[in-house]
């Protein structure tokens, strides 16, 4: 019996909970279900490739598997912007789950990725939430904030009226500590805790800036097609299952992390006042249409999203 070893480049550092919970889990599941015929060799973020190059490496078949954030594949996948999360679209994680799996957004992503010889499987959907040094009590408070942000959210926060700037992760702690910025987002509670941000910023802001499939597992089609058919099915089924298992587990861990930092580090949840939320939603909706202009496919996905949100009574 032939055994296969796949090199897997993660976009998570080894200490990140997702590295263990997502990748090591997948490694174990695939090993068990293929009776040891498929081994994953895991590499931490940046060990082999720059995180932003992982999609290309998998697409060329140099790597068999990898994990990315959709934003790393923006130039190839026109839906990546929507997959990374439009600000203030979903209000609950289950809504994003249903959008991906029930309404076919995941399949649309998979079809686009297939054109680059990549099999796309969202690892999980989860919220992105901010931490700030001073609570936001009104619109004034929000617009006077200096926030560390990145990508589409940086643009959103800037257009909404805050001063968002990009600071690399390695300098984020110092920047928050010394007050160069007053707030930042790095995932939600688990991400912020892993970066030690609660040491220097005690307010956890809710609701989420967005809820989206921000972690993705990608597989080289070349590598996948080399497997015997039964193993191909095992891989695909394991990835489908991974989405549900991980999304649920992640939410659970979010809650216990938040409870822990509230109890141990004196963190407080800062729920944005309605006035602020309304203004942010308006600013967000003005931005959505830009994402729809990226391609025919993006427009289709955006229309689908708007119809869905209308159905939910949010628009």
């Amino acid at each position, binding site marked *: 019996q032939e055994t296969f070893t796949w*090199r897997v480049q993660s976009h998570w550092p080894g200490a990140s909970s997702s590295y263990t919970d997502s990748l090591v889990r997948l490694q174990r599941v695939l090993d068990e279900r293929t009776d040891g015929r498929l081994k994953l060799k895991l*590499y931490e973020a940046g060990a082999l490739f*720059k995180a932003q190059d992982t999609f290309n490496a998998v697409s060329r078949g140099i790597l068999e598997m990898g994990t990315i954030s959709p934003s790393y594949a923006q130039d190839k996948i026109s839906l990546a912007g929507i997959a990374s999360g439009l600000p203030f679209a979903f209000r609950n994680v289950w809504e994003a789950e249903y959008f991906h799996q029930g309404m076919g957004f995941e399949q649309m992503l998979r079809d686009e990725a297939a054109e680059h010889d990549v099999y796309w499987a969202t690892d999980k959907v989860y919220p992105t939430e901010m931490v700030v040094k001073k609570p936001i009590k009104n619109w004034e408070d929000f617009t006077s904030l200096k926030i560390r942000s990145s990508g589409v959210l940086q643009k959103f926060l800037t257009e909404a009226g805050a001063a968002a700037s990009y600071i*690399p992760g390695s*300098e984020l*702690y*110092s920047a928050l500590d010394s007050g160069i910025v007053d707030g930042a987002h790095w995932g939600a509670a688990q991400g912020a805790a892993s*970066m*030690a941000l609660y040491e220097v910023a005690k307010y956890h802001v809710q609701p989420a800036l967005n809820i989206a499939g921000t972690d993705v597992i990608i597989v080289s089609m070349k590598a996948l097609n080399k497997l015997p058919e039964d193993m191909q099915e095992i891989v695909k089924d394991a990835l489908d299952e991974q989405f549900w298992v991980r999304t649920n587990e992640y939410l659970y861990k979010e809650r216990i992390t938040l409870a822990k930092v509230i109890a141990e580090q004196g963190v407080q949840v800062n729920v944005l006042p309605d006035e602020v939320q309304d203004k942010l939603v308006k600013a967000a909706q003005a931005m959505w249409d830009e994402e729809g202009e990226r391609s025919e496919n993006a427009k289709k996905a955006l229309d689908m999203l708007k119809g869905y949100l209308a159905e939910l009574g949010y628009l």
Partner: protein
Amino acid sequence: MSIEILTLLFFGSLLFFLLLGLPLAFVLGGVSVIFLYFTWGFDSFYMVASQIWGTMGSFTLVAIPLFVFMAMVLERTGVAKDLYRMMHLWFGGLRGGLAIGTLVICAVFAAMVGISGAAVVAMGTIALPSMLERGYDRKMALGVINTGGGWGILIPPSILMILYALITGVSVGQMFAAGIMPGVLLMVLTVTYILVRSTLQPHLAPALPPEERGTWPEKLRALRAVLLPIGVVFMVLGSIIGGITTPTEAAAMGVLGSLISAAVYRQLKWSILQEAAIRTFKLTGMIMWILFAAHAFSAAYQSMGAQDLIEGMMQHIPGGPWGIIIAMMVIIFFLAMVLDPVGIMLITLPVFMPIVKSLGFDPVWFGILFVINMEIGYKTPPFGFNLFYLKGVVPPDITMKDIYTSVVPFVIIEIVAIGIIMVFPEIATWLPGVFF
């Protein structure tokens, strides 16, 4: 082929081509490409290009050209020279006074930068000529700069500590706090060494003859020379601590400070700035091409299965918890001879940290040992990056052999420091306990 044999071949060929005189950057890059070809195939060269692209995008490295430029301006405009003249007038009577003064400047520099490299190049430019001019032994002067220049990663801010915290999940603030007393310990040990050595062998770090020590009015006038450097330090440190800039942006404040100093000296001329810019370009480029290749090298080694090697080794360590910790230090010491700190972290920490924690050791304390070990690695032959950075600035008559041999006592001092911190962990753990 097993990873043990691959490792021997990989590092063996590195050593071989380095001894043949090919520049370090090309040896690291070339050996990586050859081994990648045989272990992974032609397509894997994409990894080399990707690592270079990744290094180009590392924002914290932007501080290198700026701090080097700052040093070049301070040197060319005479600010640095006057500073050393002042130190000589005041401490010239003390044997080793200039070396100690240099170490103090290094410590201040270390508080301004979060990386190694910039400080070594800067101090090699500013301090080395001043010490050599005044009859200091070449090896003493080189060793002092090599060791002091490496303190940037132990005294906060430190990018290396942030990365360690990120990979192991300990608190960044605790790491920063934990680094302060070991930093002081290293300073005390190094200064003591210089005092003892220059008392025993006065020719190594001669005192100024009494007739040249200057009168009090002269001394007081010379004190003006400190004002500008202190101003520059104030601008950089003040803007970091005051929350005005990130450590990287603070480098720009340093440049601004050096330009103001140049203006005060009436030396703010295009010819001087242009020359400083070109020297900065050469030195930064040299550092960057070494880093490009070093990152590719680490990635190649990891792709060959470096972590399996470490895991395998850890299963054969006798000697109880302390034996394991010491074995880890030895492994890191040897890896640090040839790999960059980030690569070492990625290879060793995922294996080491669970063991360290399960043995009941404090991961913050271990982090300090780790960082000091990295500092040692920066200056251990044959592949200490500080050694190469220093070689890039010294006059041509100083050979690699001079630089290699200069570090020996300073490496021993740092190993002693690691030993002391192992015996008295409180040196590292006390301050974080107070703050957090």
